[in-house]
């Protein structure tokens, strides 16, 4: 860190030193804010395009750019100029505060996601547990927002969302535990470095499957989108949101989609590792978009399942599979089969 300026003449060099420092670039530009916003906006457009292709439609077209790629900007401008409506007898502080908190919580874990060997905001020793600790606050947020709306559909949707996220959080953690044991670290940079020779999807395949299904449920994606099931609950827990509140909620949800996809990439798909003709962050983003595509596609294909079945699958099937995989990992590690890959 550079010394604080003492004379007026020092201020300009100080500012330049700050702006060109690696920390500033990582926080503001690349894995930081601007990249995050651009990718999130891209994902909203990308999802609409993919769903349109599946259903033999065209999707967004007229907002400019190739394929209407400027659509998210048009949407944002539209939503930001709409009236902020708070339903009758709603809990105003919670109703307005939760969307901001949701975006904050969705964006905070990106600090520890490594987009490259040095492209990480905070090289945190408890990285993956930090991500889980922050994302475990989502159910409470959604329950509070649903409660604050003072409306029946959001409340039902919020309760469904609570139980669903709660049911799939533990299988997700146990599935990650195998990866943590293989890498011997909670630091995401170390975890990706441990995959230089062998991606963890191979020794921990069951984990990967469990983790993927769990994040589908955490993200409330089809076939697990009961909290926002259109035919039953209008729009689920965000029925009453409109304008800027709706925009913030969607920003948060798509950031969470990107976050979970990047977690799959970092934990199972070898993170930034790939043939050297592309730089590391590009590989990471390509893999992440691929995972996001896998998460989006079922929305155009599958029906949804019943809520009690959904919760039971999480607890009785996925948790058991994750625990079985834990013992498989113990076996693999204790017999030293993976020693030739440096694990």
């Amino acid at each position, binding site marked *: 860190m550079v010394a604080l300026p003492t004379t007026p003449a020092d201020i300009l060099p100080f500012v330049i030193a700050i702006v060109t420092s690696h920390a500033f670039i990582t926080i503001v530009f690349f894995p930081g804010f601007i990249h995050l916003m651009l990718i999130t906006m891209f994902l909203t457009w990308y999802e609409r395009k993919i769903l349109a292709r599946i259903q033999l439609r065209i999707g967004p077209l007229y907002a400019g750019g190739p394929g209407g790629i400027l659509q998210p900007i048009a949407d944002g401008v539209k939503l930001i100029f709409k009236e902020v409506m708070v339903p009758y007898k709603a809990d105003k502080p919670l109703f307005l505060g939760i969307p901001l908190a949701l975006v904050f919580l969705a964006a905070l874990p990106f600090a520890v996601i490594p987009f490259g060997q040095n492209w990480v905001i905070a090289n945190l020793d408890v990285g993956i547990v930090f991500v889980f600790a922050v994302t475990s606050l989502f159910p409470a947020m959604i329950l509070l927002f649903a409660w604050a709306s003072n409306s029946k559909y959001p409340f039902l949707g919020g309760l469904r969302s609570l139980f669903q996220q709660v049911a799939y959080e533990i299988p997700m*953690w146990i599935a990650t535990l195998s990866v*943590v044991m293989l890498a011997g670290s909670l630091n995401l940079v170390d975890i990706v470095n441990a995959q230089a020779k062998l991606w963890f999807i191979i020794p921990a395949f069951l984990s990967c499957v469990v983790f993927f299904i769990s994040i589908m449920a955490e993200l409330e994606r089809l076939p697990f989108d009961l909290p926002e099931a259109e035919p039953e609950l209008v729009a689920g827990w965000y029925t009453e949101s409109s304008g800027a509140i709706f925009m913030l909620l969607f920003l948060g949800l798509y950031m969470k989609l990107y976050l979970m996809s990047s977690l799959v990439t970092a934990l199972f798909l070898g993170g930034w590792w790939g043939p050297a003709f592309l730089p590391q962050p590009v590989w990471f983003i390509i893999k992440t978009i691929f995972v996001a595509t896998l998460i989006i596609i079922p929305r155009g294909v599958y029906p949804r399942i019943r809520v009690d079945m959904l919760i039971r699958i999480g607890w009785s099937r996925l948790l058991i599979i994750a625990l079985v995989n*834990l013992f498989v990992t113990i076996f693999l590690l204790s017999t030293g089969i993976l020693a030739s890959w440096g694990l």
Partner: protein
Amino acid sequence: MALDPWLAIIIWGVLIIFLTGPLLTLPIFWSRRRPDPFRDMPFESGQVPQGEARTRLVMQYYPYLLMFVVFDVVGMFLFAWGISFNAIPLSESIYVVLFVVLLGAPLGYALHLALHRENW
């Protein structure tokens, strides 16, 4: 020259608050508010909302919530053990296996209870 990771996270968090905060505070500030009891009414399929909105709670899934609290703790303990799996002799890891197995019994009972709706 790297920042302390926690300091970087604090800066990142403050940056998010300052850059996304205006997305809500500015529309509140500039949007024209026309209070109207009919427009502010909660959506209920076009009907006038009936009764209290915050009443109907699904007690049926309460055991799952209790299971979550218990297995949250278990998960965090397993993580603390998992990072240093290679540093711990296998004979000592038996205790962790026993720990997991011991929790299998209440898990089975909770799943059994949760299956029967009439219990709640």
